[in-house]
């Protein structure tokens, strides 16, 4: 009886919503069909006929409905249809086959979503500012924003400002002062840039197909990157893509389709690549392009063996560091650490505000970086510039001083570490190596004067010192990604261990992580997988799966390609890699091969997201890959026409996060970057308003995936019958937000600020528990219980439970690996003076760190405002050129002046840049950001000079170690000269791509002629 009443009520509700809400009325006009809801035995039911924009419902079972929703019994139907809808009950009912949905996907999807819309049709969003202007909220990778929208257009985008009702920030008392951040949010440059990105002329506005690609005839893969595009309709585009998916699987078998996505995404938990994209991959079944731990490299493959923390990918825990540093530290060493450029991870300029406090304190500051970076510029202090890739040698020379002068924590080394004597012997030259790692030895390797190495070591050894490594302070980015990154990260762990990490004032950090925010209030990070249902490849199983029940999704295609060898895998048909898996220290020892036995090689590439030409290495290989016939079909789903998009056969235009609804928290990553919110001065959770309609015909990724799934019969599985907005509400309900705000208020106001933690409730300082021999007392759910050797929560994840100078895990795996011996040793980089012949031809060491103004490729090019920042690009003769920084004397020698156009080149490629002549580099070192979004070859793609600025064409693709899958590319040997305006790059004699197993040889050199400048 209740069931019949509910069905009757639904009919009324549909008509009511149509009457009350114009948008809903418009919705009803979209389809003409009949849907029926009934019990399995037909004893109860109702039909709903949609026609001419109206809906009519009648209490009977009709003969041939288009759509049927069947409940096993009336009682079950009543339970499931009665609001409030319980997602867990819905999921269980589907899994137990108590519900059935029949009909063509196009109609079933529309019907279930429309029923859900009766719940959301009345929701009102945003704040009316008067004068026809609405205020909405959203989140960028550079911080949270207000948008002012008038007449459907974004007028302005500003940081979020708090009002009197929002909680204030925390205060830290240190050295007789009170440190309170200002009551405001901050933005990174790329966050402030967004208006120009939304309205960029490079936006993809409609689906397109390459003019000479015919899926039923000639595909012309050799013309990718050259052919033009023609506009097609969404139906044509989705039909084509769905047909190609079916064809690839039918003709070739499982594994024939590969999905390549980036490492980041526009913000929002439901739209994130780990969310909608992963559910899509799993629903279809695709070969994964397995990522290398790009920003963690040296920490994962190296540091983890010394101190565990594999679930932070080898970087260390980060609690309480801001307070401890402010209270106790006498010195801070920033080592390859430029947080002013990279904002930690999505941390906007929150850390900048805190680092400014260092200027008020009597804290000595040292910057170790070949480049006098942005953090050095801001804070001042002592600048020490080792040649790129020689940092491990500097670390070892410092260790030598500590050992010979007794400037280290002997008790800690004795009681909390093992294997020190082995490493000490190496440093003192008392082992087979026989080389004493004196400061003089260090000077010869690094170029840093021995006297400075000694002075640094003595200051460091005598003072309570925080070591800020990488952008985050506990690692990340910087030197860990060059050819000696593993050695560097390992050596730094040894150094901080020698100083007694965890005693007051001695820890890893640079004020970027470790603020005293509330870490117990739950809001999921993007790594927790959103709507993906993926328990294997996201952090969903940690907590989100129970809080936000959903259909599990599982990719039955177990084949993977190591990302760094994607071109080799496609072109040569094989590749090998090692796994990125943070579950344990040993997980990285697992090798995998492509192809996986029994699977088809990859024939189709689904490229999702931003261009990786600017972020991978030696990326002319990627160009070559696209133009080969080994790839039968390429689809690119992205927002702007970046360098990689123009190599696709079909382009699907996605919209930005400002054009679709979502939900998120600032700097909330979750997973491997647990509690990223400790980078912030306030925790801010955002309802991401759909502020404007999607531009052109662009659509949200969710809509695009659902559109393809409809053609594969997978729409109900992908969307669970819901709209994107419904998923957003589910995420809201899964978090702790309902305890502090009502949904209706949340979607109107758009943001919630969480109160700061009072002193007594704040998290303890990381590592202090370990230093004092107590149980682990910081709020991170890692390591896993089985990874403890003896008693749970006592000691580290290592076999000895201590910090290991000689790593047991490496002894077990391969005690004789010269690239990664059980104790860390210095082995100079191949891409350096030790390759004498090559160094003679390419004597400049080019660093390519993460960019400052764009967020990877996001924000670069696209005619955005960033183009006008002279430290990013410079306008010369009508074109915006990428910047390359060169030492003033090196420039003078080459007759290069400020903003001259120069050709930066080696045998891998050539790039035209504008020169920035500077004193911020020593001789022999040049600096240019990676992550260029544009690839603009002046001649044949892959074989000519690039004017876009993709310096990654020049970087080495060799893994840092054979028994790993690691970038080692952030330093490359190049030469620079004034550009002669020509398009030819002197191409290497052998252009075919070698399998990665063979060590990289400078093969082309013998056949090349030296490129002598015309003058």
């Amino acid at each position, binding site marked *: 009886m209740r069931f019949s009443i509910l069905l009757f009520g639904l009919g009324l509700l549909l008509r009511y919503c149509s009457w009350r809400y114009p948008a809903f009325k418009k919705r009803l006009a979209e389809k003409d069909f009949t849907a029926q809801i009934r019990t399995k035995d037909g004893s109860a039911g109702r039909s709903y006929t949609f026609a001419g924009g109206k809906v009519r419902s009648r209490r009977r079972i009709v003969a041939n409905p288009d759509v049927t929703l069947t409940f096993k019994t009336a009682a079950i139907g009543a339970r499931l249809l009665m609001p409030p809808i319980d997602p867990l009950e819905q999921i269980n009912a589907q899994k137990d086959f108590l519900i059935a949905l029949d009909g063509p996907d196009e109609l079933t999807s529309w019907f279930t979503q429309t029923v859900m819309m009766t719940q959301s049709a009345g929701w009102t969003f945003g704040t009316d500012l008067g004068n026809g202007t609405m205020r909405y909220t959203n989140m960028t990778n550079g911080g949270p924003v207000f948008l002012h929208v008038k007449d459907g257009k974004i007028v*302005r*985008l500003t940081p979020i400002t708090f009002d009197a009702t929002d909680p204030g920030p925390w205060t830290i008392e240190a050295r007789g002062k009170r440190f309170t951040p200002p009551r405001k949010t901050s933005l990174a*440059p790329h966050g*402030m840039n967004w208006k120009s990105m939304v309205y960029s002329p490079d936006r993809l506005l409609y689906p397109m197909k390459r003019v000479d690609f015919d899926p039923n005839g000639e595909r012309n893969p050799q013309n990718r990157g050259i052919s033009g595009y023609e506009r097609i309709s969404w139906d044509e585009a989705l039909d084509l893509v769905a047909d190609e998916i079916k064809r690839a699987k039918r003709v070739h078998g499982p594994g024939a389709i590969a999905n390549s996505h980036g490492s980041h995404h526009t913000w929002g938990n439901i739209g994130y690549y780990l969310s909608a994209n992963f559910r899509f991959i799993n629903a279809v079944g695709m070969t994964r392009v397995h990522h290398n731990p790009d920003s963690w490299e040296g920490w994962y493959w190296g540091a983890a063996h010394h101190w565990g923390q594999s679930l932070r990918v080898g970087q260390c825990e980060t609690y309480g560091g801001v307070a401890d540093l402010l209270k106790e530290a006498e010195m801070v060493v920033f080592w390859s650490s430029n947080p002013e450029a990279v904002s930690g991870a999505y941390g906007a300029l929150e850390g900048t505000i805190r680092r400014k406090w260092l200027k008020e304190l009597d804290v000595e500051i040292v910057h170790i970086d070949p480049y006098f970076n942005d953090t050095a510029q801001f804070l001042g202090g002592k600048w020490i510039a080792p040649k790129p890739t020689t940092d491990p040698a500097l670390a070892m020379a410092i260790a030598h001083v500590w050992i010979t002068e007794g400037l280290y924590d002997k008790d800690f080394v004795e009681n909390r570490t093992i294997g020190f004597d082995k490493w000490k012997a190496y440093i003192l030259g008392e082992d087979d190596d026989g080389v004493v790692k004196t400061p003089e030895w260090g000077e010869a390797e690094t170029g840093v004067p021995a006297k400075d190495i000694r002075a640094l070591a003595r200051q460091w050894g005598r003072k309570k010192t925080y070591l800020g490594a990488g952008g985050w302070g506990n690692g990340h980015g910087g030197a860990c990604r060059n050819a000696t990154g593993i050695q560097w990260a390992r050596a730094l762990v040894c150094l901080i261990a020698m100083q007694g990490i965890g005693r007051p004032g001695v820890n890893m950090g640079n004020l970027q992580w470790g603020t005293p925010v509330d870490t117990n209030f739950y809001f999921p990070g993007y790594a927790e997988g959103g709507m993906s249902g993926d328990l294997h490849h996201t952090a969903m199983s940690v907590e989100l799966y129970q809080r936000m029940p959903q259909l599990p999704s599982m990719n039955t295609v177990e084949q993977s390609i190591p990302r760094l060898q994607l071109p080799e895998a496609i072109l040569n048909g094989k590749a090998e890699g090692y796994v990125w898996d943070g579950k344990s220290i040993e997980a990285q020892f697992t090798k995998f091969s492509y192809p996986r036995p029994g699977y088809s090689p990859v024939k189709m590439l689904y490229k999702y997201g931003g261009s990786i030409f600017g972020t991978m290495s030696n990326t002319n290989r990627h160009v070559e890959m696209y133009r080969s016939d080994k790839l039968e079909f390429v689809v690119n789903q992205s927002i702007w026409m970046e360098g990689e998009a123009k190599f696709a056969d079909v382009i699907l235009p996605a919209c930005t996060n400002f054009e679709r609804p979502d939900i998120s928290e600032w700097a909330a990553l979750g997973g491997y970057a647990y509690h990223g919110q400790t980078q912030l001065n306030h925790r801010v959770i955002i309802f991401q308003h759909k502020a404007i309609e999607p531009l052109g015909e662009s659509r949200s990724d969710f809509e695009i995936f659902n559109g393809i799934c409809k053609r594969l019969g997978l729409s109900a599985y992908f969307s669970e019958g819901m709209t994107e907005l419904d998923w957003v509400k589910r995420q809201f309900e899964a978090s702790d937000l309902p305890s502090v705000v009502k949904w209706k208020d949340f979607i109107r106001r758009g943001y919630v600020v969480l109160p700061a933690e009072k002193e007594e409730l704040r998290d303890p300082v990381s590592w202090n528990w370990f230093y004092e021999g107590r149980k682990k007392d910081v709020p991170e759910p890692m390591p896993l219980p089985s990874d403890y050797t003896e008693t749970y929560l006592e000691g580290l994840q290592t076999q000895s439970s201590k910090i290991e100078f000689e790593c047991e895990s490496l002894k077990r795996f391969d005690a004789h690996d010269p690239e990664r011996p059980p104790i860390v040793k210095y082995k100079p980089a191949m891409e350096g003076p030790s390759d004498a012949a090559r160094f003679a031809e390419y004597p400049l060491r080019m660093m390519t760190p993460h960019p400052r103004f764009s967020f990877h490729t996001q924000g670069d090019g696209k005619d955005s405002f960033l183009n006008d920042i002279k430290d990013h690009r410079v306008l010369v003769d009508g074109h915006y050129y990428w910047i390359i920084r060169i030492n003033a004397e090196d420039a003078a020698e080459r007759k290069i002046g400020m903003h001259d156009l120069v050709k930066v080149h080696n045998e891998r490629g050539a790039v035209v840049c504008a020169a920035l002549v500077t004193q911020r580099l020593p001789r022999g070192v040049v600096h240019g950001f990676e992550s260029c979004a544009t690839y603009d070859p002046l001649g044949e793609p892959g074989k000519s000079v690039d004017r876009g600025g993709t310096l990654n064409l020049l970087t080495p693709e060799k893994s840092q170690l054979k028994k790993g899958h690691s970038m080692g590319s952030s330093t490359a040997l190049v030469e620079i000269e004034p550009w002669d305006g020509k398009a030819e790059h002197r191409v290497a004699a052998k252009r075919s791509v070698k399998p990665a197993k063979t060590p990289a040889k400078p093969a082309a050199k013998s056949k090349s002629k030296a490129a002598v400048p015309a003058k």
Partner: protein
Amino acid sequence: MSAPDAEGSVAKEKWNLIVDVDSCTNCNLCVLACHDEHVGNDFPGYAAEMPKHGHRWIEIMRKERGQAPMIDVAYLPVMCQHCDEAPCIAAAENDAVTKREDGIVIIDPVKAKGQKQLVEACPYGAIWWNDDSQIPQAWIFDAHLLDNGWTEPRAAQVCATAALRAVKVEDTEMARIVREEGLEELKPELKTKPRVWYKNLGRYKRCFIGGSLASERDGAVDCVEGARVTLHKDADQLAETTSDAYGDFKFDGIEPDSGGYVVRIADAGEGARDVEVSVSESVYLGEIRLA
């Protein structure tokens, strides 16, 4: 809140911008916020649309001082100075440029059409020519927002380090702040009475002399810490400092192109030394080996 006064305009609160050069990191948020506000937006009576590229109403100048490894870099935000004796007002025809009671200078987007001479009239280079609309344009201190309830311009709002601070105070109060915080005008020789004040301007405008002391003992070269170093010009001792753990010393605040100085190093253990220096730009003397 203005106090009643015979001269009403002096007692009124007026806008000033304080720029702390020591706190500017070149993040460009102020520049980007200005673009965001004005590109694609027309504010009648205040400012017409800013062109998407080519204008930098807020500009950031860069100054590198010294040579590797002793260098520093200063960033200097420059924008319309909203002068009380504005050369652009004098050069304008048709009352195209006016000064408001709150100190803000506005170039009328309609009346100023065609007046290209205003670009050259500004000695700070803060006026930009819009080729499409044929009008001169500059940073308007976000007057249109301040008039609508905003308490500071966008450039100050987005600045994370408070390198840009907007204050609305009476001129006498501003004079006190100038004294207390040691603020300077960017180009005092121009006498335009700007309302933009600079703190730590010496980082951009003035020079340093620095060096690194070292000494060899028992075959090893070490930094000399704690040596007394003094700076002299002619007969006067100008400053005194002590070398740090890296042997580094630095004398700052020296006028560029100021001729000859003597750096005197006195260290009992390592021997004394006089070094003659001629200053046009900042000078890093490099390593000075005492023994």
